[in-house]
Every structure is written in C-alpha cells, then in structure tokens.
C-alpha cells in the first residue's frame, strides 16, 4: 500500500510546475538573445524530461558521505536541445522571435494550469483536515 505523504498526494504537479518555470527561463533567454549573432535557440522536450523526473525522483541528487562534501547538482545538459530553425538568419542566429513568443505564452498558460491543479490539491487536503 502506498504510504500517505505529500509526494503521493500532490502527484506530478509540483515537478510539472518547476519544469514550466525552468522552461520559461530557457525561452526568456532565447528571446533576450534574439539579436545575438551565432546564438542557437534552445528548448527542452517537456514530456520526456517530466517522465524522467517522475521515474527517477530524488535519485539524481549526488550522495554526500562527508559533511565537507559539496552538494552535486542534477542538471543534465543533454536535456537541453537545439531548436530546428524555420527561418535561420544570416548571422547564425536561430531564434524565431514570433515562435518563441508563442511558446512562451503557451508555457505560461500551462504553468497557470499546473498551478491550478496544485492549488486544488492543497484545497482538497485542507478540506480533508477540517473534515468538510
């Protein structure tokens, strides 16, 4: 039987929310560099990364066997992919501003959706505690 804890109660939504925020950062960086010569637009495959996150939850953190050890970070660079440009510019820049902007907007909507789900979970738990 699955134990009762926050991880089980909240499901995939905290990871999804975090990933949406991380993706917002990547897309914002693409937009900020829309005039940088040679810049290659990047993105993550959201579904694949989220699936990996769910399967290997808490297993990517590096183990510390001594108090003096530094904590390892789990960000893997191979998750970050390069975008196939539709209209690459002559200076080697592959940012399609309009497309990035649309993706950023959509990501923001999805972030709000994930937020609603998470918020609903908390509301549900609150209700359970109060016995309503």
């Amino acid at each position: 039987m699955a134990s009762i804890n926050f991880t089980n109660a909240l499901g995939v939504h905290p990871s999804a929310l975090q990933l949406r925020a991380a993706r917002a950062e990547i897309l914002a960086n693409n937009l900020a560099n829309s005039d940088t010569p040679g810049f290659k637009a990047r993105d993550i495959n959201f579904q694949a990364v989220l699936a990996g996150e769910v399967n290997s939850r808490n297993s990517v953190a590096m183990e510390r066997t001594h108090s003096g050890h530094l904590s390892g970070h789990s960000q893997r660079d191979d998750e970050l992919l390069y975008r196939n440009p539709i209209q690459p510019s002559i200076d080697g820049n592959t940012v399609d501003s309009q497309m990035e902007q649309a993706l950023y907007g959509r990501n923001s909507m999805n972030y709000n959706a994930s937020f609603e789900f998470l918020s609903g979970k908390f509301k549900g738990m609150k209700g359970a505690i109060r016995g309503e």
Partner: protein
Amino acid sequence: MSLSNVFDIAGSGMNAQSIRINTTASNIANAESASSSVDETYRARKPWFAVMHKSFMEVNANNEFQSIEDGTGAGVQVMGIVEKDAPLQQRFQPDHPMANEDGYVYYPNVNIVEEMTDMMSSSRSYQMNVEVLKTAKQMLQRTLSLGQ
C-alpha cells in the same frame, strides 16, 4: 527559483537593446558630422552582443575548484561597442569650412537606412522583453497565492 531568473534575463535583454538604441541615436545624430581628416571622422558604432552563461564552481578530479559553464544562458551581455570599418565618405567641397588643402571633406560611414531598420528592430526586441517580464511577473504573483 527559475522564474526570478527570468527577470534578470529580460532585464539584460532590455539593457542590451537600450544600448543598441543609444548607439543608433548617436550614429544618426552624427551622420553629417564633417571632418577634415580621416582619423578624426566619426565612425558608426555598433554594440557587440554575446550570450551570458551561467557558471558555477565545481571540484574537479585534482580537488581544485573550477568554473563550469552551464548550457542554459543567463541573458545577453554587451561585450563592447565596436566601430564599423566601412569606408568613409569623401566629398569634394572646397567651400566647406572643414575642407582640407585638397578641398575634400570626410563624412561618417553612417548608413541612415541601416540605422533606421536597426532602431525598429531594437525597439521591437525591447518591447518583447517587456512582455516577457510582464508575463513572468503574473506567473510569480499567482504562485505567491498558492493554497489560498
């Protein structure tokens, strides 16, 4: 927290674009600044943009700290302002007060058409960064109301 990094990224983009607009303004203002020698003539200025990388410290195999660059960028940085090396305009104007002994006056290598398109491009990019900032702000504000 990733979302607060968006503020820095969009801010760096706005900063870079405002520098670009500044150089454009300077170029257009000086488009007709005549001079009597090649060395003293104003040359069109362009900002040099480069990706800013997030870097962090890591301990390598020899137990030394080393700086590692992350694949995710942290915005855009202006590496410097460079002068365009296009040839200057040399005009024969013997009546001009700045004319040299051969009667030539040198004008900057500013291309007004190029500067105008540059200005439009940078103002659009600036706007885009503002929109990114606005959206990130809304997302963050909503996050603060979690569980309410």
